[in-house]
């Protein structure tokens, strides 16, 4: 086994309380297997996720970041994810513009019944990040 294969990426996921966190929960209770690379931070709504959170995650050691929320139209607060969608359409492009590999950052809508989708998204993101290797851009030099 090469060193690269042993290395396990660290993925920080911001999941909305009502859909994506429940989706992650369902993946667990359904005994679906997905890589242990993920650290979930539960937030009230995808509209709560400030794009600065993403930069902060990269600063403090994340190799990849996932932002997940309810499908548009399903928001517990009616419109939070519509605002989040606009914000993250810009944020994904802006992070790429600053030189962050687009493969490291992903936004997905995952509902409370999509446990399988949650597991798939985490697996795909982990594999993509694993191919890129550890993130060093934006990293705090501490």
């Amino acid at each position: 086994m090469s060193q690269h294969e042993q290395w396990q990426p660290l993925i920080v996921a911001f999941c909305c309380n009502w859909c994506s966190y429940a989706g992650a929960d369902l993946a667990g209770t359904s005994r679906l297997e997905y890589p242990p690379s993920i650290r979930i931070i539960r937030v009230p709504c995808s509209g709560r996720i400030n794009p600065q959170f993403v930069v902060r995650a990269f600063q403090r050691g994340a190799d990849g970041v996932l932002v997940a929320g309810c499908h548009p139209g399903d928001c517990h607060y009616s419109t939070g994810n519509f605002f989040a969608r606009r914000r993250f359409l810009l944020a994904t492009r802006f992070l790429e513009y600053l030189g962050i590999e687009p493969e490291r950052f992903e936004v997905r809508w995952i509902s409370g019944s999509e446990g399988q989708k949650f597991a798939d998204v985490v697996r795909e993101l982990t594999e993509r990040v694993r191919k890129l290797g550890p993130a060093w851009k934006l990293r705090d030099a501490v």
Partner: protein
Amino acid sequence: MIAALLEDKHLEELLRARVRQLLESGQISLFLGYERQESLPGILPSSVPCIIRDPSDVARLVFDRVCHRSLVKYLLDLPTGGDSKERRAGLVVRGCDSLALQRLIQDHRVSREEVYLLGIPCTGMVDKRKLSKVYPQSPSVSLESILDDTCLGCDTHNPVIYDELLCEKVSEAPSSVVDFVQVRRLEALSPDERYKVWEAEFSRCIRCFACRNVCPACDCRQCTLESNDPGWITKHTSISEQFMFHFIRAFHVAGRCVGCGECERVCPMGINIGELNRKFMKDIRELFGRDNPKMPRDVEPLGKFNPDDPEEFL
């Protein structure tokens, strides 16, 4: 000669006479304008902001092509409270200044009744860096060659709000800003190359906050950049912190930037901050359609949504 390119004596006389009238009649209590900074022969001419309260001081007022600083942010530093008529301020507005002022009015930081606007259709300011290369001896220099880049791409020469115009409106030439040449050039690079470009830019940043202070879209009463809790940035100047600082600054003015280019002009380190703002401008136009910044009550693009916005996150 360069001096003739920079000055407009006729406009200056008009301005002085009108400001004198306004001050004497009590319509305004003070006037925000520009005065000539003392300079030695051979040193670049420069105009700096000044406040005129006494009608006999109007002779100090100038208006030429080196009046770079936008005056509208000074309105936030004027005393508030009391009768708004008594503290009514007059100021000159060009196209970009009027968009900037509109931003402050939309954000309820300035009320329209508090200001009296002398509109000046503007055909561009001179870039000091370009001017310094040809000043003072200049047998044949075209105005075009020393104009500021932002002004060359300007699509709002005429003020969008004003109380009176001091001269005839000028024709709005098709803007070259829409081409986003620099942004496209950067987008064509690989992520690593882009990171290197921004690393080189941001590492020069001395965190003087001049770009924030001068920006009409940065008008919060409390700035997150000065907050210790949550402390998004510290006083470190590591490259990681520099990225965070510029990310926050650029994102906070996304969809609010009026494209005046003040942040680039004011930067002592010559960081091309404008390319961050223009990236947002370009993406917003491509994704959400073009907002009309000239509409007085248009909600900023990130403060609203459309259920049919592009869907990339399914």
